[in-house]
């Protein structure tokens, strides 16, 4: 059974159709990249999969481990193992990162019928994952994303992913706004989390992320449809030719 199956997915924002029939299957352990120009529907796809209420599904189906994902509330999807790394992570003033993550960990554990994590165990988990993604301990004690630089916010997303251990991680433009050093360390974090049981959907505008995270499949999204799929070489091809060719074809 596939980890994620998207079948003829249509979705609209404020009445305007953005996704016009997406088909995509992701198996456990695979890394897929979706590339496309601005406005092609990349971020819409990530928000629809995570259950953002501002996006209306107008047709099609999404199965997560064979279950209807679209039936579930956003927090239920998260507890089932769907993680979205945000393009613009929000700040939550006054709420310590520790407190926030512990609430998230416990919500997921409760969903699985497990008891709340004890303080020592949580601390151990946190320390371990901070090392894994090279997260600065000082950041962790601060309020969620408050006053973080763009790079620190993105690293915090990867750190949260490492702690929550999702089955499917959707990373929405994780590379945007990062300098080359930040890009490298964020990518290392992602690579450290690659696992035969875990799938990734990388959403990106630029090919450069894929120099650091090697995808198994690359899909080109233009005007709400996947117009071409291939291996990682497709990304290089795009870097050469740009999206223009595909945009003409799609029109």
């Amino acid at each position, binding site marked *: 059974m596939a980890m994620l199956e998207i079948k003829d997915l249509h979705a609209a924002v404020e009445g305007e159709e953005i996704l016009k029939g997406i088909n995509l299957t992701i198996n456990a352990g695979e890394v897929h990249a979706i590339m496309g120009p601005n406005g092609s529907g990349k971020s819409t796809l990530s928000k629809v999969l995570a259950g953002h*209420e501002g996006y209306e599904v107008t047709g099609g189906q999404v199965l997560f481990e064979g279950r209807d994902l679209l039936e579930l509330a956003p927090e239920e999807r998260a507890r089932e193992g769907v993680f979205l790394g945000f393009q613009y992570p*929000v700040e939550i003033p006054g709420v310590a990162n520790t407190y926030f993550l512990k609430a998230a960990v416990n*919500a997921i554990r409760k969903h699985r019928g497990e008891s709340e994590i004890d303080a020592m165990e949580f601390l151990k988990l946190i320390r371990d994952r901070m090392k894994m993604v090279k997260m600065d301990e000082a950041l962790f004690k601060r309020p969620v994303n408050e006053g973080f630089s763009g790079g620190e916010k993105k690293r915090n997303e990867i750190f949260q992913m490492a702690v929550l251990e999702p089955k499917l991680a959707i990373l929405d433009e994780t590379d945007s706004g990062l300098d080359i050093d930040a890009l490298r360390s964020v990518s290392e974090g992602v690579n450290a989390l690659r696992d035969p049981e875990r799938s990734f959907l990388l959403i990106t505008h630029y090919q450069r992320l894929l120099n650091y995270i090697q995808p198994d499949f690359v899909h080109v999204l233009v005007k709400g449809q996947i117009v071409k799929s291939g291996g990682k070489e497709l990304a290089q091809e795009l870097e050469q030719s740009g999206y223009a060719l595909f945009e003409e074809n799609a029109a």
Partner: protein
Amino acid sequence: MSASTDTINELTRKGYEYGFVTDIEQESAPPGLNEDTVRFISAKKEEPEWMLEWRLEAYRQWLEMASPNWAHVNYPPIDFQSISYYAAPKNQPKSLDEVDPKLLETYEKLGIPMHEREMLAGVAPEGRSNVAVDAVFDSVSVGTTYKDKLAEKGIIFCSMSEAVREHPELVKKYIGSVVPRGDNFFAALNSAVFSDGSFVYIPKGTRCPMELSTYFRMNAGHTGQFERTLIIADEGAYVSYLEGCTAPMRDENQLHAAVVELVAHKDAEIKYSTVQNWYPGDENGKGGIFNFVTKRGLCEGANSKISWTQVETGSAITWKYPSCVLRGDNSVGEFYSVAVTRGRQQADTGTKMIHMGKNTRSTIISKGISAGHGQQSYRGLVRVLPAASGARNYSQCDSMLIGDQCGAHTFPYIDAQHPSAQIEHEATTSRISEDQLFYCMQRGIGAEEAVSLIVNGFCKDVFKTLPMEFAVEAQKLLEVTLEDSVG
């Protein structure tokens, strides 16, 4: 419009936990207010003649005054002749052991410890203080705990009625010294008909060994509560005092018009914390308490300090401005406030910091949260008088809106009459954004928990000033209050 807006709407419609009525035999004054009412109350309390005269003078002043209308709140005119000004349980206990079990049960239900066994049994861990409680039920104090223990240190903690009888010299000296009888309409009314409240005196150089607290409960219908509290910290003394308030759910509006006066002498410190949870009325604005309160502290001596912390979640209308008069040189005034308005609640609250002495400092941190159709105003005055060289003030007023039917307003007044004054004012208004909610939910955190998490983060600067036990209570109260604000 969207799911989270629905959630937010629901979150603002939570029921009120403390709305039960205690069925107990009570006696009360017939509705109406005239000089005889004042005499009746004074006689009930077996007051000396001077106290009665003081009340009558206040009553006469009140007759000449008009209800203030400058606050940003709306309510129908109050008929002062339809209110009963005195209600009390029939059997007045002589000691704690004689308190009516029904009353003890009431306080048990409210989570207020009316027993001293924890300390008597010696189980209170070293360093962690117990709380002494004065319980005020409608117009009378029904019991005060740890009185004897405190008396060993020369600390007086008793009901106001008792203080008038037992410590007339102190009451005479201080009552009305911070909030004069004719200060404002509601203060004058209170001065005429005040019923019970707490009296605290901490002698020179004494640090009060436990938290003192008063728990105000309004039970009787068609009755107003007019508490009067007076706290004096003599030179070098320290006290931390807490007050809590609840009332049954009733369809009528009930008036609560209190006066609180604090006096801190040289090197003394008073920390006054309030968790106000009067019945706020139902979601359509029916019923609820009108909470019109005058609270003021006088930093009389040099290096004295008064700190107000309030968590205001109840009442249909709140009108209160706990203030500090910084007369002593180097004295310090602080005001920390979290106020929540939801349903049809309205609040106009803030503070006044009056700098009179040299190098006086004040800090104001106000956090307002509005949900549902709640309306909230911060109103604050920072005044630096001509003699107050080197005065400093820092004010921060933040408002958070939940949903799109509520309102937040800020009215800061600044009056600096000395060129060296340094006054800073910061204000922000934010909305719990759908993005913040979605972010939390995407991490598996449910909507209600997410709202409570975000709001608690917003209030953190104030909660951390509350005594530990109260901080936990305040957080829980906020959760209960905002539960169902999202859905």
